């Protein structure tokens, strides 16, 4: 075993990201590695990311929820699924629609969600709270004091957003909808609607 006590800043950075169970902000890294400016920390992150590009590395740095975290490369997913024996549970359409509403209109109450979706959302909301994608922000000061919902930090992590300002603007979606739907969904055939001749 050689040079055991020798650990460079990149090594320290990797260790820090490795042990953290949530994204670590630039400021936090800067504070821990005192003596390195924010610019230097950014540089280190870029260097580490560069190392990870190599084909014998299985992980990468993803910038999400106002911080940095390590994650496995997408190409490793099939093997990890073998290890785990399952694919991650995906959200249902009702859950996604409800989540989208909450994301864009937060803080929002259950009746307000139901008014737009035209259906009851109790079950879906419960799932979203259980999965920590939605959090309770408080109560609305009006009759009945309904609970106000908003998205959580794990929501940002789950969808890979840096922050809420990264949400695609709704207009954008409207304009792009027909193309993106066909382009991106191609394989899994998510098309909800099949026209009948």
């Amino acid at each position, binding site marked *: 075993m050689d040079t055991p006590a020798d650990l460079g800043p990149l090594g320290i950075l990797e260790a820090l990201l490795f042990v953290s169970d949530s994204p670590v902000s630039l400021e936090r890294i800067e504070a821990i590695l005192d003596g390195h400016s924010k610019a230097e920390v950014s540089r280190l992150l870029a260097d580490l990311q560069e190392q990870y590009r190599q084909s014998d590395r299985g992980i990468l740095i993803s910038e999400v929820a106002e911080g940095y975290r390590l994650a496995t490369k997408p190409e490793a997913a099939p093997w990890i699924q073998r290890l785990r024996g399952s694919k991650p549970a995906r959200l249902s*359409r009702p859950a996604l629609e409800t989540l989208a509403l909450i994301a864009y209109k937060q803080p929002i109450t259950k009746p307000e969600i139901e008014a737009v979706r035209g259906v009851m959302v109790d079950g879906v909301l419960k799932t979203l709270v259980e999965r920590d994608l939605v959090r309770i922000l408080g109560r609305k000061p009006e009759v009945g004091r309904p609970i106000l919902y908003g998205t959580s930090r794990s929501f940002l992590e789950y969808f890979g957003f840096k922050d809420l300002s990264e949400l695609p603007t709704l207009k954008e979606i409207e304009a792009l909808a027909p193309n993106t739907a066909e382009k991106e969904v191609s394989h899994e055939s998510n098309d909800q609607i099949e026209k009948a001749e």
Partner: protein
Amino acid sequence: MSYRVRLEMFEGPLDLLLYLIQVNEIDIYDIPIAAITQEYLGCLAGMKELDLEVAGEFLVLAATLIHIKSKMLIPVEEAEAEGLAAEDPRQELVERLLEYKRFKDAAMTFEELEAEQSLLYVRPADPMVPVADGPLEISLSALLRAFMAVMQRAPQAVAGEITLETINVGERMVALLDRLALQSPVSFMALFEGMTTRLQLIATFLGLLELLRRGLVRARQTEPGSEITIYRTVETAVGTDGHTG
């Protein structure tokens, strides 16, 4: 055009209506209400096997469609003459559909992002994160999730007994114990002083009954019809929360 629609596969009535509009290549700003209502009702007819709760949501929109249809039958001049706004009766529906569609589309984008992100695996969180020295951080949602989790795992009998109670009763029980810590015995009526709502009264009463049942307080009445006094049988708490003072 012929197709068979399975209603349970739709997110709701608006989703179905949107589908009918798309599949018929209808301009959303100029919906032929009579035709679409007919088609919508036709779809509903095939859902006899659906449970009532779901059906209800679809029926509400059916009623709306029929209402719009009837309004469309009133000639514009007549409507204006009657002082009704010359507004298109379909307008509100169109706005609702567009609003719904915006989020439906957003949901599809979310779905794509989810698919991308689901390929990235992060390290599993340590379930026993040591308590650090920093300021405490618990989210209310985390507390709720913990409660749901613990109740789901609880043995059936225990869980059943425990979920019956409501939070208000528990709260009143604690408040009553606090009150009795300051003064015991106290008259039954005094425990209800300052309460303005029926709900508060009921919750307090139920809380008191529960405390009695559990033997945490005792009620005494010297003779029938005389005032009831409540005693705390619980030992006063020692030096907590600055309450004992």
